[in-house]
């Protein structure tokens, strides 16, 4: 041991954790041969049964899509056809771990080669199944992380996250991974600190670790000085969070008494169960991709109508801004998006919606019908030129006419646009007829800085507080003020304590943040004088 090892990465879920490192990737290395074919076969049989039991136990604790995923995995695992090839190989002298891996690799390759995207996407489930049985075989499954451990590895599967007991604290540190991943979202909603993009370590990772997921660093084999500093930061963060939670029910206001509206971003209506509508000023961004990413395919008008109506009724009469389908880029939707070499600059957002009027008009009808149940606004993502806005509003008008003719109740909501393509931010005057602007700071930043959001190698360039990005935000806000067009911001910057003072100075008075950041955003606003 030669002193502390310090690694830096990108925070994916804020917070601090101090505990023993638990290496997830050492798992596969420790399979011990059982000596005979019969014993190998018995070991695989036992491992499959144990993995099934774990999955069933896990399924009992989840709801919605997570349950569907687990039930599918469970059914696959219960089918002897899945393991038949592995048992044949064992008879021919292959050890159980290799036989199982090879059998599943064959299945996975079959799914990956499928023409249909729905089937291709199931390869991930098969990989998850492969790993779970392998974990039991190599007794990695018995090697549950100790309470409060920091899980370290290349990446982490959703089942592993769900199966881990986080009640005693702990955290996640990943060599790769992404802050936009499903696991990162789960970590934020459960308050589990997580860092991604740490890169490969030069030496063995073991012992006590200090995980600082507020700034994005981890220290292994820390000195007593490291521990002291860490605990100071950790305590301060804890205090800040507690104070913020106390203030969360109060309306946000700057130090000098300027009110700021803080709304929430909703990715899935499931999230709403944990939120009190009184703690926020409405929904600034409701994504609709969750409806489109189910294994059951594209949603029909009725399913959408029910989902939108539910959110509007939950919000009482507070505003709810629903964004029309924003697929493409880093959000592929099987059966809808197309494969492209450079998806962030391709057919995504409104471009794709306009290219698929069948899908888009069903969504428009669902929104028009839901609009009678609350204070709805609708916004279009990735608008670059005015013609896109004109075509989208025309499509809404057309569907409204059809609903009127059919005698169906509906209402036309205000129709606004996202400001995320630089062309809109530079020349907002070309959009003086929109009902509102909502600045999507994540995409605006990646396009202004030419730094992909999902690429950790250029993460430092991807800063929403770069003067160029802030200037565009200030320009759009000022244009809106002069022309009485409401301007809000719904990117991650709105919930970032370091960015909030700069956003308020740029003139913004409406921000929308993920629910987990609501309290800290309000606390940060209270510290700013504008």
């Amino acid at each position, binding site marked *: 041991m030669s002193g502390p090892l310090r690694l830096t990465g990108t925070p994916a879920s804020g917070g601090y954790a101090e505990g023993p490192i638990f290496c997830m990737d050492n798992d596969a290395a420790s399979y011990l041969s059982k000596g005979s074919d019969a014993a190998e076969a018995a070991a695989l049989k036992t491992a499959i049964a144990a993995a099934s039991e774990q999955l069933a136990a896990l399924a009992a604790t989840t709801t919605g899509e997570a349950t569907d995923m687990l039930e599918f995995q469970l059914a696959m695992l219960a*089918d002897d056809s899945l393991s038949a090839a592995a048992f044949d190989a064992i008879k021919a002298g292959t050890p159980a771990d290799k036989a199982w891996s090879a059998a599943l690799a064959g299945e996975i390759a079959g799914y990956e080669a499928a023409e249909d995207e729905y*089937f291709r996407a199931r390869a991930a489930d098969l990989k998850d199944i492969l790993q779970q049985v392998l974990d039991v075989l190599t007794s990695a499954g018995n090697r549950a992380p100790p309470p409060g451990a920091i899980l370290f590895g290349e990446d982490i599967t959703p089942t592993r996250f769900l199966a881990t007991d986080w009640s005693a604290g702990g955290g996640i540190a990943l060599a790769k991974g992404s802050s936009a991943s499903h696991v990162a979202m789960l970590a934020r909603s459960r308050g589990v600190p997580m860092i991604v993009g740490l890169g490969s370590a030069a030496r063995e990772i073991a012992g006590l670790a200090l995980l600082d997921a507020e700034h994005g660093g981890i220290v292994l084999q820390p000195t007593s000085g490291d521990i002291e500093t860490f605990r100071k930061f950790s305590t301060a963060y804890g205090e800040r969070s507690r104070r913020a939670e106390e203030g969360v029910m109060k309306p946000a206001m700057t130090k000098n008494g300027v009110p700021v509206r803080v709304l929430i971003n909703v990715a899935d209506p499931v999230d709403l169960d944990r939120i009190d509508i009184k703690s926020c000023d409405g929904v600034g961004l409701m994504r609709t991709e969750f409806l489109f990413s189910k*294994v059951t395919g594209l949603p029909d008008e009725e399913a959408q109508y029910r989902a939108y109506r539910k959110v509007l009724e939950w919000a009482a009469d507070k505003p709810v801004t629903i964004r029309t389908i924003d697929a493409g880029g880093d959000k592929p939707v099987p059966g809808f998006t197309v494969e492209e070499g450079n998806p962030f600059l391709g057919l995504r957002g409104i471009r794709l919606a306009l290219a698929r009027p069948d899908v888009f008009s069903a969504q428009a009808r669902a929104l028009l019908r839901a609009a009678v149940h609350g204070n709805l606004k609708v916004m279009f993502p990735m608008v670059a030129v005015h013609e896109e806005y004109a075509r989208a509003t025309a499509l809404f008008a057309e569907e409204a006419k059809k609903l009127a003719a059919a005698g169906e109740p509906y209402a036309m909501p205000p129709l606004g646009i996202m400001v995320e393509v630089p062309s809109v931010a530079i020349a907002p005057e070309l959009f003086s007829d929109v009902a509102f602007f909502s600045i999507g700071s994540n995409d605006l930043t990646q396009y202004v800085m030419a730094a992909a959001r999902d690429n950790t190698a250029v993460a430092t360039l991807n800063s929403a507080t770069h003067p160029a990005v802030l200037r565009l935000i200030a320009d759009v806000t000022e244009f809106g003020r002069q022309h009485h067009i409401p301007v809000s911001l719904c990117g991650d910057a709105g919930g970032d304590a370091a960015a909030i003072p700069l956003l308020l100075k740029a003139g913004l008075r409406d921000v929308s943040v993920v629910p987990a950041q609501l309290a800290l955003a309000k606390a940060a606003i209270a510290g700013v004088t504008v």
Partner: protein
Amino acid sequence: MSATAMAQVEITHAVGLHARPSVKFTKLAKTFTANIELALAAEGPWIDAKSIVKVMAARAPMGTVLHLRASGEGAESAVTALVALVERDFDEAAEGEAHVRTA
């Protein structure tokens, strides 16, 4: 007692016989003791309708005409029940509603 039954049904579900529909289909098939097989064409190949691995491997998209055949005890009711499930779109519409309500 070796009854046999055959039927054809078109898959109208938007993504075909995919993960969740396959789970439901094979679960229902397994509640019958009859030997049940399915094929995507009248001439086969016929596969075990109780095996989700094989049903998924058939990759039956929307619009596929599913051929079902069963033999043994309860063959007739097995085929009737499975055809009804496919015709009901695997109860996905009702499922979706339940999903939203619990959400």
